[in-house]
């Protein structure tokens, strides 16, 4: 991460074009975070661009106490949250039929069936998560899909550990209910 510090120092001394180096280094991480919340490639790119734009605008506030990629990840999570709030207002973009028969069969079938493909599983979760609030979606995604600890989630979302635990518990219960509702629709 020393390289990041060097690039940041150059940018602060006027080499603004060097920000492209930071984009090059961290775009995959930003895409990986945002892809959990937006599956459309064009929208995903827009969100990633918004993340880097916000980082650029608030670069003077970066105090280097945490590594640059942690700070950038936090911005990406905020961009994702804003996006989820926006699409929550616009309501659903995918319908149950879009999930495909395989997914619905898996959901309504016995527990010992073979696993879904990763893409199908992610689509099913995205569909079921529509019932969760944006904050709950972020917490459950970070905990279950990114494998982050409560402490890490608290740092990245700017919430307390207790709030993260409560949200995660509520999100898990809501998600289970949503999946059961989909199961019942399939039967």
């Amino acid at each position, binding site marked *: 991460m020393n390289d990041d510090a060097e690039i940041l120092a150059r940018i602060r001394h006027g080499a603004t074009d060097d920000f492209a180096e930071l984009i090059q280094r961290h775009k995959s991480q930003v*895409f990986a975070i945002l*892809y959990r919340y937006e599956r459309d490639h064009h929208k995903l790119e827009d969100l990633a661009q918004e993340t*880097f*734009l916000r980082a650029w605008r608030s670069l003077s506030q970066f105090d280097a106490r945490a590594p640059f990629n942690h700070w950038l990840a936090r911005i990406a999570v905020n961009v994702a949250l804003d996006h989820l709030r926006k699409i929550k207002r616009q309501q659903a973009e995918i319908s149950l039929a879009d999930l495909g028969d395989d997914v619905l069969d898996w959901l309504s079938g016995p527990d010992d069936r073979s696993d879904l493909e990763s893409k199908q599983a992610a689509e099913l*979760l995205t569909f079921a998560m529509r019932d969760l609030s944006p904050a709950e979606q972020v917490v459950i995604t970070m905990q279950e899909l990114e494998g982050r600890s409560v402490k890490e989630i608290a740092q990245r979302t700017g919430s307390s550990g207790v709030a993260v635990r409560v949200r995660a518990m509520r999100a898990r219960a809501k998600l289970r209910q949503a999946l059961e509702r989909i199961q019942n629709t399939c039967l």
Partner: protein
Amino acid sequence: MLMTNEKNDRLFKAARNEAPPAPDAAFDTRVMAAIRRSTHQQTFSILDRINLLFPRIVFASAAIIASCLLIEVGVGMFSHSDLSSKVAEISEQWIFAAN
């Protein structure tokens, strides 16, 4: 049918393995262009707006002055007294009535 813990976990596990799509090759260039645009707007927006606005303000002021002069001349031509003396007369009457 209930969604068991095991099934829930298997769903998360499967979704966890999904790889995100790779960014487009032109992504960096596009972001840098957006940054330059936003920097340009931030630096010059106020100046640009004043520059754009100023000739309009001058033109608007000149148009108001010209229309006032035209009214003054027009009123002067069609009545024996000019507009300012009429206004002074009306205001004197009003002040006198008030007292």
